[in-house]
């Protein structure tokens, strides 16, 4: 057996590592889902239990809940590795930092998206979402979740070692995430009024692809700045 690992092997081993860390304690996963349920509850309590009102804004509530529920856990993705020195070690390894970060963001995406997909029926019941929306909703949270985690890695790398980084992170991240919200709600809304959502979906995919290309490079650059401190 050769000692030289291929990029694919390294990639898979990093994803495995993230999974082990995150699923060993289920606290993170449970907190994301319960946070989202609480946001939805707050919205419903705010607007009152009126069917017509809810039908008009249920898609928006779903997407805002999704984004707000993901943001608090973003900060930890790199901070933990920065604090215990894992990032210092991996920057000296021959594996490019970009590859490690790409695998990290894909792992984070899977970790966040699997519980959300599992709990999707719950939100469909809670928010009275039309059943014909389900396949589109599934595709759009898969694609949108990927771009949120790619942008989140950038944000997490930006606030590495910053004072009050946990407060700063949402201010930096939310303006970058706006297009995801608009295209995501656009997909659901166009389906609701019986039109083709393909245009919005392609825009969402295009946005995600842009960040799939630039996010690993930008966050690796930022981590090199943070490590050199």
């Amino acid at each position: 057996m050769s000692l030289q690992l291929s990029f694919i092997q390294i990639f898979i081993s990093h994803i495995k590592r993230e999974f082990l860390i995150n699923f060993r304690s289920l606290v993170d996963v449970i907190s994301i889902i319960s946070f989202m349920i609480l946001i939805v509850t707050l919205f419903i309590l705010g607007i009152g239990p009126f069917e017509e009102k809810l039908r008009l804004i249920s898609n928006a509530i779903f997407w805002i809940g999704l984004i707000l529920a993901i943001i608090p856990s973003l900060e930890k993705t790199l901070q933990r590795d920065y604090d215990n020195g894992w990032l210092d070690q991996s920057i000296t390894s021959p594996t490019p930092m970009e590859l490690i970060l790409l695998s990290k963001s894909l792992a984070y995406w899977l970790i966040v998206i699997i519980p959300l997909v599992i709990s999707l029926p719950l939100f469909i019941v809670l928010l009275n979402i039309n059943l014909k929306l389900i396949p589109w909703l599934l595709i759009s949270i898969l694609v949108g979740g990927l771009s949120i985690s790619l942008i989140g890695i950038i944000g997490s790398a930006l606030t590495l070692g910053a004072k009050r980084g946990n407060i700063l992170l949402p201010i930096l991240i939310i303006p970058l995430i706006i297009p995801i919200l608009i295209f995501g709600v656009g997909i659901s809304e166009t389906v609701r009024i019986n039109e083709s959502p393909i245009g919005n979906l392609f825009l969402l995919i295009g946005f995600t692809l842009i960040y799939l290309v630039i996010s690993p490079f930008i966050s690796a650059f930022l981590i090199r700045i943070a490590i050199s401190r």
Partner: protein
Amino acid sequence: MFDWLANPNRFNRITEKIQPCILVITIITLISGLYFGLFDSPKDYQQGDAVRIMYVHVPSAWLASFLYFSLAISCVFYLVWKHPLADLVSSTIAPIGMLFSVLTLVTGSLWGKPMWGTWWVWDARLTSMLVLFFFYLGYILLSNAFERKIDGSKTASVLAIVGLINLPIVKFSVDWWHTLHQPASIIKIGGPSIDDKMLLPLILMIFALSFFSLYMIILNVKTKLIEKKCEALLLKSNLEKYRKQVKI
């Protein structure tokens, strides 16, 4: 060219000569622009005198976006060629740009009250200006969030560049979302659709505010250069004092 300008002494020498000219141009264009705008331009047949808010609103909106672009460009210069002057420039552009975006939002809502009947309408252009404001805010907060100044400016420069990639997408998506704003009327294929008498003060005001912000940027950069020199001198004198004490 930037390489050549990046020498602080040379920068000081050149701006010494340019600065009074910029000030004079600013004063002349500002006074004439305000005169033409406030007294010598026709009322709009729909909007009445409220149309005169446009002579501040449009130039500051234009400058807010243009200054963000130049902020990101100078951040690129800072990150790639590591010019210390580029960092000073971008850290002075950010508050000025933020000021102009606030001015745009305020004048927009002042204009909105008589026109739309409410202070604030979630129209596409105002919303994207609000997002631009948050990009400026994020840049300023992040550049002050680190123990050492240099870490903050490096990290915030990356944020500004990401923002430059992201802002057109935000702008497009917000436009896509919904709009009840007037379509663009100055830059348009087939010439502007605005009366010459209104166009003249508008262009004068755009020049006035651009030269004003250029003047402010040069002034601020000079102040910061002097501050840095003072810091260095202070360190040096402290060091000499310390050496004398040690010898005694």
